[in-house]
């Protein structure tokens, strides 16, 4: 008898609670803008903060609400501007847009003390090294966020333009008529 009533009570409880949860999910839902998600997916996602926002998500929110221009993201370059303008339906004049030259950090071996501060802050693990050993930057993984430059006590980390080689040399844009 006790077993039966327990089963009935538990089942009823489960049903009622389940229903109320379902109703709550429908009526008390926290709205999240799907557009923000899509914009965030386009962003580089390195949370570098070069746009002035604390990360890519807040920047995406600002973009969707229209308080930030589509040209806000330096690492994204013109490709991102074009994609954002298309997604958000904004007109943007790209004829004068100039991608800023991508920069990467480089360790100067004379002044590095091996303090390990830089590789602790690197968001992409692009710096390799060990305590009291000279560190080095893996240029292919560096995103140019300058976090390491800020923490370096001896200023041995500096930003340099990416070296031009036969593999990444490209034709320049013809001068307009």
């Amino acid at each position: 008898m006790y077993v039966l009533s327990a089963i009935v009570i538990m089942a009823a409880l489960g049903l009622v609670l389940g229903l109320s949860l379902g109703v709550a999910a429908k009526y008390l839902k926290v709205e999240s803008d799907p557009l923000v998600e899509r914009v965030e997916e386009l962003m580089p996602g390195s949370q570098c903060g070069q746009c002035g926002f604390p990360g890519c998500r807040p920047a995406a929110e600002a973009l969707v609400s229209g308080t930030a221009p589509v040209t806000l993201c330096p690492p994204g370059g013109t490709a991102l501007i074009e994609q954002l303008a298309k997604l958000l339906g904004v007109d943007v004049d790209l004829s004068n847009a100039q991608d800023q030259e991508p920069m990467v950090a480089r360790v100067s071996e004379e002044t590095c003390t091996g303090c390990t501060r830089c590789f602790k802050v690197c968001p992409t693990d692009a710096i390799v090294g060990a305590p009291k050993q000279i560190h080095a930057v893996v240029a292919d993984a560096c995103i140019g966020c300058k976090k390491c430059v800020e923490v370096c006590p001896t200023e041995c980390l500096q930003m340099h333009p990416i070296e031009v080689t036969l593999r990444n040399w490209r034709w320049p844009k013809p001068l307009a008529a």
Partner: protein
Amino acid sequence: MLAFLENPRLRGGIHAEEHKQETSGQPIAADFPLPKKLFIPVQQHVGKPAEPVVKVGDKVLKGQLLAYSQGTISAPVHAPTSGTIIDVKDYPAPHPSALPVRTVIIETDGQEQWLKSFPPEDPFLLDPEEICSRVGGAGVVGLGGAVFPSAVKLNLGRKNQIHTLLINAGECEPYLTCDDRLMQERAEEIVAGIRLMLRGMQAPKAIVGLEDNKPVAFRAMQAACREFDNISVEQVPTRYPMGWDRQMLRYLTGQEIPADGRATDIGVVVHNVATAHAVYKAICLAQPLISRVVTVSGGAVGKPQNVEVPIGTLMSEVLAFCGVDKAKMARLVMGGPMMGDALPISEVPVVKACNGILALSRDEIEEPEVQACIRCSSCVTACPVGLLPLEMASRIKANQLDSAVDLGLKDCISCGSCSYVCPSNIPLVHYFKFASGELVKRQQAEHKSEQTKRLMNDRNQRMERARLEAEAEALRAQEARAARAAAQAAAQQQAKVEESV
């Protein structure tokens, strides 16, 4: 224009001044003096650069391996003569930017001492796989200018069961006659190379296509092919860019390669005629690709002619041999005037891709004044691919690359017909080269952004794991401390009890 109407199998194209008669009647010069130094870049092909196997100070023999091929799409390079390796360093490449490339530098000893080689007794009895591997090992690449490793193409042909090998002897670029001379003088060897290629690919028949402005070469090739029923020689109209594989294939077979496909999709493989000759040398003589025939021509050249030069010879020495008037030379071009690259300096080596060295005088080039587009659509008529160059260029000018891609930018072959006919002198093909480079850059940026996300994810996960581990460690330490304290308390209690007893 009338020829175009008469023949529906021809699309677009131009007819420029040929300038071939200066060199097509002269035999290939064989008396080019051996240079004191040779500069051999390790990257002379499409794909991964070769890896040097020689050290500074090593003595090498003619034909010895200098750098081996890495990966499936790559090609080795060999010593063009005997001598001593004096350096392996970065040296300017024959490229419009003259940026450095890793280069093996040989000081020649003048002995021309060959590495002992073992040519097969009957090359036409070799296994197809053996032919392909020997061609790959000899560093043979497409000599029409694309420098794609030939062995890869032969293997691809065998796997795809192709029905026709098309030998491209169009040589549609003005000035160039190196393939023409090669066919006039060495037709038999070329045909042997074609037969070896057919065997290597297990293909039944071959067609040699050449423009009808080379009657002597045509007759020579016909004579050489007479006893082989499966090789035919066909003439095609002289109309640039006839040497574009799709144009020639469309003319000769009426078939069209799909826009995003390859010739193998319709059962055809295309090789250059000079490549066939290199295959002959690689198999029958067991000689790697260490020299090539180069057309030296242009208004500033005193003795325009074809010269067989070792790979790695500096262009300045070839130009000096042909009596170039440096004061008259206004532009140095590697390749043909339509698709070749203008080089800023002449102290760069001749590489496998180099089919011509043109020293153009001031009246052969123009420094045109660029004017606005008048939408005359001459470029649309000239485009052999059927694109809208004027529209694409205006999009690219406004940095709207995506819409240029929608208009077919990726199908552009940079043949330069549009720039040639443009009455406003708009550098159309320069716009397309710029845009193609930008697209590659974008692709790389996207790839990097993906990699960045993955790296950050990994790092975040690692940090989280480290934090959890530290917490667990702290908890364990606390528990251990508590247990120790409890044990101590219990022991003290015990001691007290024992004392009171």
